[in-house]
């Protein structure tokens, strides 16, 4: 499996949105948040990402999903999402691009 070479990444994995919110609340320094579109028992990113924003996280938020076909994905920006990515597209090149785009350039 190939890995991102240019950046050292520390990954915090949260299984639920509640644990992610706790992590933010604890003041853990986070550069970017990647959210699985479906985090049971919640519906989709329209329910989860606004909660992340309400906790005060102002960095880039991306939604990862097995399919981006649903019509509601077209309004992702209205819910505080910066970008969307298909799970199949998540490779080292994509990760490096996102880090460059949202963290290095800014």
């Amino acid at each position: 499996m190939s890995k991102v070479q240019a950046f050292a990444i520390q990954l915090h994995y949260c299984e639920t949105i509640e644990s992610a919110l706790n992590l933010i609340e604890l003041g853990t320094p986070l550069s970017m948040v990647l959210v699985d579109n479906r985090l049971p028992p919640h519906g989709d990113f329209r329910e989860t990402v606004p909660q992340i924003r309400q906790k005060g996280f102002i960095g880039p938020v991306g939604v990862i999903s097995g399919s981006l076909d649903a019509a509601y994905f077209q309004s992702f920006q209205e819910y505080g999402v910066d970008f969307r990515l298909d799970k199949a597209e998540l490779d080292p090149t994509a990760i490096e691009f996102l880090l460059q785009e949202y963290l290095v350039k800014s």
Partner: protein
Amino acid sequence: MGALLNSCRRYDFQKDLEKALNRVDFFRIFHMLALGAGFDHFGVLQLGQEVEPALLTTRLVLHDLPSGLTEEYDRRHKLSDSLLFKSLHASTVPSVWSASMDEAAALNAGTDFLAQIGFDLVACVPVHSIVGTRYVVLYFGDNEDIDRTCHVELCYNSTTTFDYFYRFVLATRAGMGLTARETEILRWISHGKTASEIALIVSVSEHTINSHTATILKKLDVVNRTQMVAKAIREQIIQ
């Protein structure tokens, strides 16, 4: 896209293009095109003027090349000196550059860029925006070659994707945040008009023109009217 009927289209990823909203969406599409044609990376390069010094880092408006590669290239080489760059100014024919040519042929064929950037194959698809500015979609890989059918398809798909990318991403940042009135005043300044002359032309006070001019200076991040006009032309806000 209202002006283009569905029956006129000859590409099969219309749905993706219609849905694309930001740079990441276009990264996804160009990246998919690159991988689909056997390449590893892509870059959308603004050609600009041949006589201007060209840095690969600043000319690439979107790319997925490994971090630091373009900066390293610019430290060691001059893009404007490469035969590939010169050929892009000399012709709009799509081309494929391979490092596997024999040494003598390679010397004359401009493979210097390939050796410098570190890929075995580069495909160039010259494209242009709806306002005529020239760009090139580049595909980088270590594949041996690309067959003709795949190349033709890649050219068509690149042209199509670039059109959407320009209209939905590049064009919206092209004005650098200037309002229509500020752009109009900028245009008159570029024609050599004074503040009082512009005030008469656009029917506002000279004070208002000076206020607009100060805002333009700030938005373009420049210090005087000469630099303002130079930057506005460079950024293609005015012709």
